[in-house]
């Protein structure tokens, strides 16, 4: 069972690992065109692409550890190349998540202000270019693991089987997380603070859409969404620190897979409440259309599912 699960992750990593670089080329390119053409529609479309790719980057990084598990014992596989790729991927992931965060903020600002402040457009431009460079570097290093034909001539490669010492930035971060006494409990506490921020706002917004607190307009609650987004950001950062600290206890854990799937779908669901006209037009006392209610109920189910799967990591899976 464990072997087949690991092989699945390796396949999923092969499927996903082209999305971040190609997605950022497409999303970033469209974004730059939207700035030149001064097109609001293109801005929103490109920002949605960048946000979506920043979410897909999370499982891309996570499944990389499953791929490592599947190939590190094979002959000719270099531990140093795997470590370099993993470290570069962590840097790329960090920049992509910040790009996604500012892209979401721009979508939220557009909904409230009918425009995106120039400072945020500048931040997104810089972050997109840096993310693209970091992603292409990570992709290139990943390709060198299995494609010796693109390896630089004379490049040293330590066979993975020859060393038991983890190498690379990600392993250094992981060792800091597990080796520093206050780090894990601090991240646990912050993870719960992020969760309460996120779930509190999500429930307020979604309950209003399904018909509770009808006297409150959606626009009033929409103003709270950045608090939820910041809570989500805190949980992505602390969650990735947990993962880099002990990847093995997550990559063999079905509860973790379901949690990640629901996080991604719920993240895309959040775009609906951030940007779309249907919920935004909901005034005091008005009843939401069926599509908005469906999105609200699905959001509550998804986020409570994320909470459930996170809590069940030690019980349904093998974590801790």
């Amino acid at each position: 069972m464990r072997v087949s699960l690991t092989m699945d992750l390796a396949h999923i990593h092969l499927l996903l690992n082209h999305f971040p670089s190609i997605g950022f080329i497409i999303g970033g390119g469209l974004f730059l065109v939207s700035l030149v053409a001064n097109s609001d529609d293109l801005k929103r479309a490109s920002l949605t692409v960048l946000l979506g790719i920043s979410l897909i980057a999370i499982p891309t990084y996570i499944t990389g550890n499953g791929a490592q598990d599947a190939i590190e014992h094979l002959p000719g596989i270099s531990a140093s190349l795997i470590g370099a790729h993993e470290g570069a991927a962590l840097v790329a992931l960090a920049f992509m998540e910040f790009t996604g965060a500012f892209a979401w903020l721009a979508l939220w600002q557009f909904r409230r202000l009918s425009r995106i402040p120039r400072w945020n457009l500048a931040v997104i431009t810089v972050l997109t270019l840096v993310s693209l460079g970091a992603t292409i570097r990570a992709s290139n290093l990943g390709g060198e693991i299995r494609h010796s034909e693109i390896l630089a001539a004379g490049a040293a490669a330590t066979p993975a089987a020859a060393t038991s010492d983890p190498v690379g930035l990600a392993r250094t971060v992981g060792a800091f997380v597990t080796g520093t006494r206050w780090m894990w409990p601090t991240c646990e506490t912050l993870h719960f603070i992020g969760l309460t921020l996120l779930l509190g706002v999500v429930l307020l917004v979604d309950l209003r859409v399904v018909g509770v607190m009808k006297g409150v307009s959606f626009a009033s609650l929409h103003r709270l969404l950045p608090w939820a987004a910041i809570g989500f950001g805190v949980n992505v950062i602390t969650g990735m620190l947990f993962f880099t600290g002990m990847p093995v206890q997550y990559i063999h854990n079905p509860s973790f897979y379901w949690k990640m799937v629901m996080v991604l779908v719920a993240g895309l669901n959040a775009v609906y409440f951030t940007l779309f006209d249907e919920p935004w037009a909901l005034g005091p006392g008005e009843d939401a259309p069926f599509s908005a209610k469906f999105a609200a109920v699905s959001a509550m189910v998804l986020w409570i599912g994320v909470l459930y799967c996170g809590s069940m990591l030690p019980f349904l899976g093998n974590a801790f």
Partner: protein
Amino acid sequence: MSLVVGTIVWVTGATALVGLVAWALDRSTARRERGE
């Protein structure tokens, strides 16, 4: 840094930072909405 001091300092610091960022964002957006 000890376990108790480390967790209290970092949790308090990070929470304060998160709250400050969210509050500043809310204030600045509200000002822009009012056209100030």
